[in-house]
C-alpha cells in the first residue's frame, strides 16, 4: 500500500513549486513516485532513495581513505575546528531550511565567523545593486494575474527554472490575463539563442559583456535622446522598438539571472536594469525580479538580514557584524587567504567556485555537511551526511519573490541520520561549552 502526500514543496530552485504530489510507502520510509515536478525536482526526490547513499559522518584519514565516525564525534570535530579558528568561514546555507540557518548563525556569532551564502556566486551582485538603487518588485502571483510584458534578461528558465514559465510568467491565465500566453509579449536578451529565447516574441542577441551598455541604451531611448547606430550588437532601431513595447504594456516585469550578475559590470548591470525599471514606472507599471537559484538562498539572506542586518557576506569576527563584498565575501576571503577554517553546509563550492578558491579550501581545516557526495566533500577533512531538507525534513524556505513557504517532510531519512538543524544544535551546544558561554 502507498499514500500520496499533496502540496509538497520542491527543494530545488527558487521557483519553490508547492503543488507536487509524492507517493510514499505506507510506513513512510520509501518514496516511489513524484508528480507535477520538473525533471530536476523529480530527480532530487528520487535520488534521496539511492541505495549507495552515505549515511554516517566520515573523517579523512592520513592515507586518504574515509573512516566512519559517529555524529557526536563529528560534532566534536566541527566544534573544535570552529572554536580554534581565528577567522572561520561558514559558507552555504542555501539548500537548508531557515531553522538550521538560525542555529548556524548562533554558532557563527559565538566563534566570530564569516557567514556567507551562495548569493556570493549567484545574485550577490544583485544585492549590491539593490543596496545602491533599490528594487521595485512584486510577488509571482502578480505576474500571473497582471503582467503583459515579460523580459528575461540573461536567464534561461527553460533550463534553470523549468516550471517558471508555466506556473507564473508566460502561460498561466490569471485574473487580468485570461488569454494566458496571448495576453503577453515576451522579450529575451541573451548572447545565445537559448531554449527560452526560441519562445520569445523578440530576442536581442546581445554582445556578451555589453548588457550594461544595452540597458543604458534603452533608457536613452525612453528619454528620446541620440543613440549610436549599434549598441552591444543591437541596432538602435531595434532598441527603440523594445523601449516602445515596454512602455505600451500595462504591467511589465524584468526577470534576470546569472547572465548579468556574473558578467563584466556585474552589480552595475543589475543597477542599470533596476534604473530602467524605475524609469519605466514613469510610463506604466513595471517590476523586476532576480531568478534566484537555490531553493532557499533567499531565506538565508532574509534570516541574515533580520539577525545581523546584511543579506550575505557577513563578517562577525570582531563581535559585531560587518559587510562589504570584496572584503567580507567568500571568494575574496579564500582568494586573499583571509580565513583559517572552512565550514560548508547546503552548498557545493567545490563544484561551483573557481578552482583557485577550491584549492584554498583543500588547504584548510574543513567540514562539509551535505546529503550528497560532492567535490566539496571530496576535498574536505570531514563529511557529514544529513537528511535531505524538503524531502526528509520540512522547514521554512523563501521563494525567489521572498514569499516564505513551509516545506513538508514526505519520507523518513535512513535510520539514525540527523537533519542539518539537529547536527548544528549538537555543534552549537559544544561550542557554547568550549567558549565558556552560559
Amino acid at each position, binding site marked *: 500500500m502507498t499514500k500520496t502526500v*499533496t*502540496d509538497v*514543496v520542491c527543494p530545488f530552485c527558487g521557483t519553490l513549486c*508547492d*503543488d507536487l504530489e509524492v507517493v510514499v510507502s505506507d510506513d513512510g520510509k520509501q518514496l516511489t513516485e513524484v508528480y507535477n515536478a520538473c525533471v530536476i525536482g523529480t530527480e532530487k526526490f528520487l535520488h534521496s532513495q539511492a541505495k549507495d547513499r552515505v549515511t554516517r559522518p566520515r573523517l579523512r584519514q592520513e592515507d586518504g581513505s574515509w573512516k566512519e565516525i559517529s555524529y557526536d564525534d563529528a560534532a566534536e570535530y566541527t566544534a573544535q575546528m570552529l572554536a580554534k579558528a581565528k577567522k572561520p568561514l561558514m559558507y552555504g546555507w542555501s539548500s537548508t531550511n*531557515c*531553522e538550521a540557518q*538560525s542555529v548556524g548563525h548562533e554558532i557563527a*556569532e559565538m566563534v566570530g565567523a564569516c557567514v556567507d551564502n551562495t548569493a556570493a556566486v549567484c545574485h550577490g551582485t544583485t*544585492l549590491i545593486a*539593490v*543596496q*545602491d*538603487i*533599490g*528594487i*521595485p*518588485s*512584486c*510577488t*509571482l*502571483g*502578480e505576474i*500571473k*494575474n*497582471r503582467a503583459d510584458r515579460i523580459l528575461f534578461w540573461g536567464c534561461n528558465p527553460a533550463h534553470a527554472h523549468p516550471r517558471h514559465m508555466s*506556473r*507564473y510568467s508566460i502561460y498561466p491565465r*490569471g*485574473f*487580468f490575463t485570461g488569454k494566458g500566453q496571448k495576453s503577453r509579449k515576451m522579450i529575451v536578451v541573451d548572447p545565445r539563442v537559448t531554449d527560452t529565447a526560441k519562445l520569445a516574441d523578440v530576442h536581442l542577441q546581445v554582445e556578451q559583456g555589453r548588457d550594461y551598455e544595452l540597458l543604458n541604451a534603452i533608457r536613452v531611448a525612453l528619454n528620446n535622446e541620440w543613440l549610436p547606430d549599434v549598441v552591444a550588437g543591437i541596432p538602435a532601431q531595434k532598441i527603440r522598438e523594445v523601449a516602445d513595447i515596454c512602455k505600451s504594456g*500595462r*504591467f511589465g516585469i524584468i526577470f534576470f539571472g546569472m547572465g548579468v550578475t556574473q558578467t563584466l559590470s556585474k552589480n552595475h548591470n543589475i543597477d542599470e536594469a533596476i534604473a530602467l525599471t*524605475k524609469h519605466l*514606472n514613469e510610463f*506604466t507599471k513595471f*517590476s523586476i525580479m532576480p531568478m534566484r537559484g537555490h531553493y532557499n538562498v533567499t531565506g538565508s539572506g*532574509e534570516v541574515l*538580514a*533580520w*539577525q*545581523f*542586518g*546584511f*543579506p550575505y557576506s557577513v563578517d562577525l569576527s570582531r*563581535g*559585531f*557584524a*560587518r*559587510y*562589504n563584498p570584496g572584503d567580507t565575501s567568500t571568494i575574496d576571503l579564500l582568494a586573499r587567504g583571509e580565513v583559517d577554517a572552512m565550514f560548508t553546509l547546503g552548498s557545493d563550492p567545490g563544484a561551483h567556485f573557481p578552482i583557485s578558491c577550491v584549492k584554498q579550501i583543500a588547504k584548510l581545516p574543513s567540514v562539509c555537511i551535505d546529503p550528497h557526495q560532492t567535490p566539496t566533500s571530496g576535498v574536505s577533512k570531514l563529511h557529514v551526511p544529513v537528511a535531505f531538507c524538503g524531502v526528509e525534513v520540512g*522547514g*521554512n524556505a523563501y521563494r525567489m519573490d*521572498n*514569499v*516564505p*513557504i*513551509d516545506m513538508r517532510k514526505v519520507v523518513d531519512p535512513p535510520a539514525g541520520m540527523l537533519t542539518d538543524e539537529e547536527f548544528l544544535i549538537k555543534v552549537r551546544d559544544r561550542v557554547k561549552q568550549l567558549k565558556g*558561554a*552560559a
Partner: protein
Amino acid sequence: MAEYIIKNGHVFDPLQGIKGDKADVAIKDGKIVKDNQVSSKAKTIDAKGKTVMAGAIEIHAHIAGPKVNIGRIYRPEDKLFTYTPKKGNIRMAGGTSIPTTFKTGYEYAKMGYTTAMEAAMPPLFSRHVHEEIRDTPIIDEGAFPVFGNNWFVMEYLKNNEIENTSAYCAWLLRATKGYAIKLVNPGGTEAWAWGLNCLSVNDPVPYFDITPAEIIKGLIEANEYLGLPHSIHIHPNNLGNPGNYTTTLDTLKLAEGYKAKNKFGRDQVMHLTHTQFHSYGGDNWANFESKSKEIMDYVNKTKNITIDTGNVTLDETTTMTADGPFEHHLTELNHLKWANVDVELETAAGVVPYIYSPDIKVCAIQWAIGLELALMAKDASRCFITTDHPNAGPFTRYPRVIKWLMSAKAREAQIKAFKNSDKVIAATHIAGMDREISLYELAQMTRAGPAKSLGLASMCGGLKPGMDADVVVYDFSPDKPVANPDQIEAAFSRAAHVFKSGVEVVTNGEVVNNGNKRTIWVNAKVKENPQVMRDIQEKFLKYYSVSQANYEALGHHFIPNPYAIEVDASQ
C-alpha cells in the same frame, strides 16, 4: 520564578487612577500581586525618588516582516559604525532606523516597552513576520494583517456582505495569526498595481467597483460584528500630501454612528494612525501648513475614535508603508533608492530612505504637527505617542519626543534651532503652546490608553493585581524640578529596572535577560460559512501562486510561544 517588591516609588497608573502616589508594587509568578502576597524572599527594589509605571505599549511600528527586512537588506549604510557587540547571552545588535530583530527587542526593553504591535503584515508573508517576531527578544508582539486592498474584502463589500467579510476576516486572522484589521490607503494600494492611486475616500478602485469609504465602513461593521479586541486600525488615503486633512476628516466621519461591540472594554470603532502625516494644509510645499487644530477639534469631540501621533524626530530614517503609491511619489521627490513589493490579491509595500532635516521647512512643520496633536489632545487616553517607526523617525527616539512633550523649554530650543524658524512658526501653532504633558498623561498616552484601544487593558498597561507583571522603574523624580530637559530624555532612554511578565530584563539601562516573549493573536470563531470557504478555495486555485494548504502560519517554528485571545462571534 523570583518574587519582587518595588518599594516607595512614585506610581503612575491611570488604570487605577494613581497619580504619582508613593506605593509598592509586588510581583509573583509573573503577575502583579497585592504587596502582602509576596513572601519574605521577595527581592526588594528601592524605587525611592523614582517613577514607576506599567510596561509601555507600542501601538504602531514597523518592526518585523518583509518590508522591514528589505529595509535592512538594502541599507548596509544604516548599520555602519553603529553595532553593539555580543555580550554573554545577549546577542549582537545593530542598525539605526531599521535595527536587527535583536536590537529591536533590546531597545524597546531598555526604554521600558514590553508590548509592541507590528503595524502592517502582508498576509501572504505572515510566516516571515512571525519568524522575525520570534527572533525579537523580550517584548510581547502582535501583528496587524492588512485588509484594505484585499480582493475578497472588496468583492464582498461591493455587495455589502458583512457576514461574509467577517467570516473571511476571521479566517485570515487565524491563517496569519494576526491581531487586528488594518487598512492602508484603502483601495489606493490596489490601484497602485496599475500605477494609480485613490486620493479621496470617494475615488473608485479600478476594476473593483467600490470606493475607499465603502471599504472602511464595511470593515468597521465586520470588526464590530466579530467583536475583536482592537478596532479597525487605519492609515487613510492621501498620506503625506499638502491639503490632505480634509481626506482625513472625511475618513474619521465614516465612523459616525458606529458603536463599539466587544467584551474587552474598548470604546472606539476606529483607530487613526500616524495622524501627523494626515494633518496637512496648503496645496503645495510652499504654502504647506499645520491643520492639527482642525483634526484635533474633531477627535476631541468624537469619543469613538483613538489616534496615534507619528512624531517626526528630525533624523535620517527609512520610510516604509503598504501605501505603495506614496513611496513611489516619495522616491520621485528625493531620488533615493526605492523598493516596492506588490503582493498578489492583498496589498503592496514601498520603502525609501528619508532625511528629516531641521534645515528644511517642511520637515520642521511636520515636527511641529506631531507634537501639536498630542498637546491639543483633551483626553490623553485616546491619543498615543508613536513615531510610526521608522517612518517619522526611529522608535529609539521616544525619549526625545517625551522630552519635547514634557518641556516647553525643550520645544522652544528646537524651534530656535530651525533654519527657517520664522516660517515654521507662521505655518504652525507650536510656538504659542505652553502645555507640558504630565507623567500621568504620559502613562495614559503610552500605557493605559493603547492597552484599552487594543483591548488588552485587563492584561497589560496597568499595575492592578492580577495583571501581567510588566513594570518599569525610571530614574526620574516627579518631585524635583527639571533643570535641564535632557534629563527627561536620559531617564526615559534607559530604565533603571524593567520587568517583563515578572522577569527582570533590564537593570540600570542594560539588558540582562532575553525574557520569554509571546506572540499575541486573535482567534475569532464564526458560524460555518461554506460560501466563504469555497471562495477561498477558488481564489487559491486560480489566482494565488501558493496552494491554500501552504498558506497558514503554523507551528513551533513560527509561533513558539503563542498567546491567543479568543473571540466568539458564532452566535
